């Protein structure tokens, strides 16, 4: 029979005991604080990635192949016009293939390890990733437009490096960053003049023509940050030529078709070099890269927590055997076996509470470190999970020693002279 109202009366005394023994408990609290921090970072990593994984990706990667196409470094010098013609030929050859639905040039593909970032000289929050794409990109990736329109031929007016206006489509995150709740369509994003910017950039205006729901370039494990698509027309020799082509294949195309496609491409542009992968394979590679960092980290954290857990069992066990007489006195004055269980576990829990309070103070400093952007909700959730985790861990550690303490008869305990 567990009588909790009676057990709870011990709580103020548990805290007094722990507080009065603060000198000898200091090391235990230090250990518990360190364990709390480890647990917090484990919770943060796991929760962050688990929660992020469930958000919509914003595009479809199935049946999309990724061709890296660039002029060989060894190739003889040729005019930009010729290069652009080859590029255009490549796209038309690809579109002519029976298994291909669509093809689009793009500077940064989903799941790639490269970034192209700009902050418009406005600071960290306004940092946005940019990908330079051709008209067909939205249909190739099946993007979801929520406001305005996607690029079309009428945007040719803004082509080339000489144009001071560039048309862009941004994701909702970027729309919120730059325009808040206002309608972003037709508005311009500009650089704030300052150190490190050339005159050309200072004049450039990025005109928003459309907004897409989201585009999580990294992978399912990456957050939806600011993203901006800039339009390019590869035939215009003054505009940018991206080095990758994304190809939407008809469903059911065999992987072995790659070889045939590669031959076609090499015939079309002998001075170019090509690499073909699928976005699905790129995604796998990106995920593996994350696991490669995450799994050893979590394993080590688990080791640390196991070590700490075993150590706690030892320390509590020892403290129980050392204090048999105190427990015996409590038994003599009417403490039940359950009261003793509660007392032994409660003491470690009280100690944990001190550690958690101190740990929370430390954790509160973490959002100030801008090493990784994690939503506040995930922080809060991780803190809760770590606090609960600490109480579970310490309760488990005290469980066996508390049973040990409970089995001792009050008279036995008094005999411990």
């Amino acid at each position, binding site marked *: *029979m567990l*009588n909790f*109202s*009676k057990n709870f*009366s*011990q709580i*103020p*005394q548990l805290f*007094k*005991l722990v507080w*009065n*023994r603060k000198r000898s408990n200091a090391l235990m609290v230090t250990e518990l604080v360190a364990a709390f921090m480890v647990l917090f970072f484990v919770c943060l990593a796991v929760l962050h990635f688990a929660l992020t994984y469930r958000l919509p990706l914003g595009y479809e990667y199935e049946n999309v192949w990724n061709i890296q196409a660039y002029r060989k470094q060894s190739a003889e010098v040729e005019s930009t016009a010729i290069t652009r013609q080859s590029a255009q030929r490549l796209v038309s050859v690809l579109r002519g293939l029976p298994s291909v639905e669509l093809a689009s040039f793009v500077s940064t593909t989903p799941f790639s390890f490269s970034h192209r970032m700009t902050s418009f000289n406005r600071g960290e929050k306004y940092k946005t990733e940019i990908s330079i794409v051709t008209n067909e990109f939205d249909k190739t990736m099946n993007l979801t437009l929520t406001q305005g329109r996607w690029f079309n031929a009428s945007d040719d007016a803004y082509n080339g490096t000489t144009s001071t206006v560039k048309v862009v489509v941004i994701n909702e995150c970027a729309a919120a960053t730059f325009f808040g709740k206002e309608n972003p369509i037709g508005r311009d994003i500009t650089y704030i003049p300052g150190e490190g910017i050339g005159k050309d950039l200072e004049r450039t205006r990025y005109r928003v023509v459309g907004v897409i729901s989201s585009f999580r370039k990294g992978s399912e494990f990456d957050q939806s940050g600011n993203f901006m698509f800039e339009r390019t027309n590869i035939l215009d020799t003054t505009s940018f030529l991206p080095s990758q082509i994304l190809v939407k294949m008809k469903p059911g195309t065999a992987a072995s078709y790659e070889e045939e496609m590669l031959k076609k491409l090499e015939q079309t542009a002998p001075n170019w070099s090509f690499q073909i992968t699928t976005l699905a394979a790129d995604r796998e590679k990106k995920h593996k890269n994350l696991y490669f960092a995450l799994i050893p980290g979590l394993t080590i954290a688990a080791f640390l927590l196991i070590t700490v857990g075993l150590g706690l069992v030892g320390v509590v066990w020892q403290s129980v055997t050392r204090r048999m*007489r*105190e427990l*015996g*006195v*409590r*038994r*003599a*004055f*009417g*403490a*039940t*076996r*359950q*009261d003793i269980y509660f007392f032994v576990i409660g003491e470690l829990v009280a100690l944990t509470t001190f550690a958690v309070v101190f740990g929370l103070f430390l954790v509160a400093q973490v959002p100030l470190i801008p090493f990784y952007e994690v939503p506040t909700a995930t922080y809060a959730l991780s803190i809760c999970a770590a606090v609960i985790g600490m109480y579970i861990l310490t309760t488990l550690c005290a469980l066996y020693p508390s049973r040990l303490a409970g089995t001792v*008869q*009050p*008279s036995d305990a*008094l005999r411990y*002279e």
Partner: protein
Amino acid sequence: MTLQHAQTLTKAAVLELAGIEKIYRTDSLETVALANINISIQQGEFVSIMGPSGSGKSTLLNVLGLLDAPSKGVMRLHGMDVTKLKENAIAQVRNQEIGFIFQSFHLVNDLRVLDNVEIPLLYRKGLSGSERKQLALEAVQQVGLSSRTKHFPSQLSGGQQQRVAIARAIVGKPKLLLADEPTGNLDSAMGDEIMNILHTLNREHGTTIAMVTHDERLAAQTDRTIRIFDGQQVA
């Protein structure tokens, strides 16, 4: 619990022991610690228990205090057979009816005087924190240590520590006080001080006291002396 009821039936005898035996068994050995003990302690009595070392008087005290169950025999507290009670019920009886005083005080070093005194109340139902504090203060006042409530045991003399232990024993207003050589670790002046307190409790508050002692002089001050030798009751 039928305690209240039982109390009204047999007002006179607080504690009755009939045919109590205590045998310790190990794999190869059987030690008879107590044999055929028959004691009755009346309400308001101050009884002393005497006997040489190893005679079984500590075992007797353990049995009296419900710290140890007898191997055989019947023990009645206020007429109720407590040998049949379950562990938690016994703990409750100890908590409400019995107070303990030990030779070496057994105070918790890391708790202040008031927190030490409060301990028995922690295991009692329905008391708020302020009620506990009030009762503890009263008990400390009774043993004349009101000025020392915030001290730690290590900051007190031996006599003062034993007074704290007495306060802890009486804080729950028990009917029976069990003292195991309460003056054994103290010099005679301090010992007398403790005995005075016990006598006051016995006379003015009607507290029943059973005290184990080695000291004939102290035993002579009590109403009656029970003598134990080799686990047998000799007087």
